[in-house]
């Protein structure tokens, strides 16, 4: 049994008549890269706000490192919530000096973390002159400052360009490889699928699913096929016993889903016997996105 990093039980938050978080239970173990998913307004950020001490809970409990929450625990946590927040008139380095003081970290760490996020050259410029990507990277540098056991990232790639997204993703993977626990709130499912080991889905403040990413992605979601005679292929596929659903996609290929007992070899044999030769056949990998949308619409 691995040790608990975070344990949430029955956590609830009301804003007037609205219940933003509703009796939430969650357990995050050491070394997990945990994705917190949910549409906008599902309570992800409120939950993170509560466990980080800036939002008052209405009821329920949470524990960090199996202890009742106190401020000094947060020195062992690196967190960025929503947009990067710094003193705009100070430089990146000056801002990090304040964080060093708060977290009781020696100032030598500043240059190290700035190098990790690739901001070393611009560390002395005022924060207000930074681009969004640089601000986001400074936020990550700040979160890494105390070499924290847990990293909490809320929409870390928000507003970044594709290159920036790839860099941040690579950074998260490197940090996770070092055995750190990461909590990643995002509505970019592709991102969660690429970096997370576990995930939970929130909807209207309630947890509707939790599990491991690997299990959720095992198996496949049918096949993608095409042929020179796509119309005939479609008719033949429709006539085949055990085919659940056929859809033509943007590449002019057919996405075919089967019942569980269908053997793909027999299906292929059937097509060849009917005079159709495939020029494309590929399994469709399961995606978190699809499952997520199914969960939400249920």
């Amino acid at each position, binding site marked *: 049994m691995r040790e608990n990093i975070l344990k949430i039980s029955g956590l609830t938050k009301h804003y007037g008549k609205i219940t933003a978080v509703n009796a939430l239970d969650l357990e995050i173990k050491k070394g997990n890269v945990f994705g917190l998913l949910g549409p906008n307004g599902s309570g992800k950020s409120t939950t993170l*706000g509560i466990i*980080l*001490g*800036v*939002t*008052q809970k209405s009821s329920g409990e949470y524990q960090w490192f199996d202890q009742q929450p*106190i*401020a*000094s*625990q*947060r*020195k062992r*946590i690196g*967190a960025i*919530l929503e947009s990067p*927040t*710094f*003193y*705009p*008139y*100070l430089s990146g380095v*000056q801002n990090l*000096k*304040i*964080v060093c*003081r*708060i*977290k009781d970290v020696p100032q030598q760490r500043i240059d190290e973390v700035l190098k990790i996020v690739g901001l070393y050259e611009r560390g002395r410029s005022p924060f207000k002159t930074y681009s969004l990507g640089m601000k986001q990277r400074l936020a990550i540098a*700040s979160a890494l400052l105390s070499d924290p056991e847990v990293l909490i990232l809320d929409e870390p790639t928000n507003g970044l360009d594709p290159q920036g997204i790839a860099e941040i993703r690579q950074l998260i993977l490197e940090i996770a490889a070092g055995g750190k626990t990461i909590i990643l709130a995002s509505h970019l499912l592709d991102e969660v699928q690429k970096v997370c080991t576990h995930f939970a889905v929130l909807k209207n403040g309630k947890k509707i699913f939790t599990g491991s990413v690997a299990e959720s992605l095992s198996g496949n979601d049918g096949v993608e096929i095409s042929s020179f005679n796509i119309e005939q292929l479609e008719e033949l596929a429709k006539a085949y016993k055990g085919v659940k659903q056929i859809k033509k996609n943007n590449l002019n290929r057919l996405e075919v889903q089967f019942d569980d007992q269908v053997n793909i070899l027999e299906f292929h044999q059937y097509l060849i016997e009917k005079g159709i030769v495939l020029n494309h056949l590929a399994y469709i990998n399961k995606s978190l996105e699809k499952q997520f949308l199914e969960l939400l619409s249920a």
Partner: protein
Amino acid sequence: MWKLLQIEWLKLKNYKTFNRLAILYFILLLLILSSVKLILSWMENSGVEFQGISPNIIPFYDFPDVWQNLTYLASYLKFFLAFIVIISVTNEYSFRTIRQNIIDGMSPQSFLWSKQVMIFTFSLVNMLVLFVAGTIMGLIHSYTFEPHLFFTGIEFLLAHFLELITFLNLAMLISLLLKKSGFAIIALCFYALFVEPSLVAYLNYKSDDHWLITLFPINAVNNLVKVPFQRYVFMEIQNYVAIGSLIIALGWYGLCLFFNYLLIAKRDIA
């Protein structure tokens, strides 16, 4: 405590608005403290007389008068310090840095104390400047130096210190409530210069020296050091710090501190 002071200093020292306000404040303070003799001799040259007395022989800077005179004059500048406090507190909300400070591991109590340490430092520096200025001016202008005269009335410096920390905590309370520097500055001035004086005038009109008047916060801090200047035209003044005023001001300080704590610790920090 030392750590909290360092954090506040890191936040302020490279902030242009703070530097400008602080420099302006000290220039005005030193000007006010040092120029009275000049004004008095100018008045004499213009032929002004106070009930037959030449203005230039008024012992403005003499021990022990100097302490009450200087602290009274300096108390007018407390609004400048209040603006610095308001900007420092509201900035934390408009930049959302209070949120990040707490996420980074500061407790709401520490945040409150970091601002208190800042307020204490301002007030302490102010008190030291007044002490040095009073000593220098007193030594230059007094006819004789006698230790017991030097220390007489020095409690006005402590009263001034209490006046500042109470007033600045009131400014902090308004900042926490309004979260925007412009609103907070206007609200503080509007209350201190219009709302409370109007209420006081109304109560005075209802009955002379209504007991409620001493309880108003601005009145309470202003009452610590009473206007001393009528003594030079042979009128009686209160040349001591009244225990009642001390208690009321301390009460307001405690009340402001309590509400400041509630607003930081018990409210969602958006």
